[in-house]
């Protein structure tokens, strides 16, 4: 089985972003960038499927600025076999990302695509579902467990009232949730080895996908900050405040 894992370079999850003074975007100068945490989980799951003998090849793809090559190198150091960078001036919208991924799927013919359930910068939670729609493939979002079965995959998903298990024929799309696995760190020797693994670069413009944004940003703002309240000395004081000041009990 061949697995494709799309990964995105995002602002590190530890960074609290700030809106630029002009309101036109967020401050990214000097900000730490990392692989989207859900995509680390997706890469890890692909590696585990290979270690179980289910998968034979793991291909990873990122669409974005030239520096996304660093993110791809991280995935290669974790153990992916090869990488493709689809270079564009910025990360396109999920619909355009899905269209680019569809072209790569048609070319590479993977049996399974594992994506993150959402990118923690734009929080769209859309790309996997959109790709599944474009390919007319079955989808299992928010996966917490993936198992190979005789006729495809059994995927357990986190849903609002608990969890459920779906069975999917291959080829299929899976999006990774937090509890699917704990991703490994790339060991130093593997980071060295990853430099020699193949990384192909394609210009997004050459794929013929229209990258025009359907959504344009009119403004960005930080939500009104909550002001810190008061620390109280006793439980009795808290009960009094909740009853008589806040009036919520």
């Amino acid at each position, binding site marked *: 089985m061949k697995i494709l894992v799309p990964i995105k370079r995002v602002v590190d999850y530890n960074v609290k972003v700030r809106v630029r003074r002009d309101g036109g975007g967020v401050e990214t100068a000097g900000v730490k960038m990392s692989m989207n945490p859900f995509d680390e989980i997706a890469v890890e799951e692909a590696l585990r499927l290979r270690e179980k003998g289910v998968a034979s090849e793991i291909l990873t793809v990122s669409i974005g600025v030239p520096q996304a090559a660093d993110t791809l190198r991280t995935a290669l150091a974790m153990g992916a076999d090869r990488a493709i960078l689809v270079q564009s001036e910025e990360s396109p919208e999920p619909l355009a990302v899905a269209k680019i991924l569809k072209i790569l799927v048609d070319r590479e013919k993977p049996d399974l695509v594992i994506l993150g359930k959402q990118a923690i910068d734009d929080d769209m939670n859309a790309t996997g579902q959109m790709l599944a729609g474009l390919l007319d493939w079955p*989808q299992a979002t928010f996966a917490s467990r993936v198992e190979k079965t005789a006729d495809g995959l059994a995927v357990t998903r986190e849903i609002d009232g608990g969890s459920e298990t779906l069975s999917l024929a291959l080829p299929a799309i899976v999006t990774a949730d937090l*509890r699917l696995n704990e991703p490994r760190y790339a060991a130093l020797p593997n980071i060295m080895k990853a430099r020699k693994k193949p990384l192909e670069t394609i210009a997004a413009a050459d794929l013929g996908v229209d990258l025009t944004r359907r959504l344009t940003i009119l403004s960005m*703002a930080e939500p009104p900050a909550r002001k810190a309240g008061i620390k109280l000395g006793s439980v009795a004081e808290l009960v009094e405040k909740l009853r008589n000041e806040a009036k*919520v009990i």
Partner: protein
Amino acid sequence: MTALVLLDAEDGTIPQTSRSAIAAATSLGDIDVLVTGGADTIAAAAASAAKIPGIRKVRTASGEAFAHGLAEPLAALLVALAPDYDHIVAAATAIGKSALPRAAALLDVQVIPDVMDIKDSETFVRPIFAGNVLVTLHSSDAKKLLTIRTASFDPVAAEGGTAPIEAVTPPDDQQKSRFVSAEHSSTERPQLEAARVIVSGGRGLQSAEGFKILEPLADRLGAAIGASRVAVDSGFVPNDYQVGQTGKIVAPDLYIACGISGAIQHLAGMKDSKVIVAINKDEEAPIFQVADYGLVGDLFQIVPALTAALG
């Protein structure tokens, strides 16, 4: 203009989250709702939907393919109904988040997830970066597909309307993934998204056994119980208790955070609560920066004392 709102009605009832999605859509013109489910639940679900005031009509589709909210047949159905509508709307629940982006791709539309405010029929506000930034977007798509951040909209009433019900014929078997089994975490408590009060616990509860100390307090307050990611990852409580950027988004009148440090990913899910109480032994914990009232100390003493003080 006309909007179609997909309701989460698989168990035969209409949840509050779906009524919040209808509330969001009221500024978009006439509203039809779409109710789907298995043959055994559809009549009850349709009857409940018809009672919601302000609905033009209830459209229903039933059968095995719709019994479990699978994304593929739902998306195909939305695509088939799309020509009648300018907006297609759903709550940002597991079902809405799975089906709407798929339908949007099939319609060549960029879905707009997690809408918090609707400025006009083409302009929407949504959170990015774990809610640290609110972005106002204009959509140039001919049709708009939105999921709604339900905590941002007060639900419409459940009763008072008499909308007509009309069955639609779904497209031919579009089933791709198949339902195998479900594990529902059973609870007598209110749903997190609908609760007026939430008592929430984190790593500070130490174990599944330790977590139980929150139950008498929640019982006393009629509260739902929530949790941080660490509490879920550590197996103290089931996954659907998680509040945060990648869990449930809540905005109750009162949120009591016990043994939760206040990471940005957790705050993303609860910082719109009306009143926040933090109980934490570390007076430097970031949760105190958003809490209206804080108690510094050992939760294993404070929580039982609070339960007792409430009488």
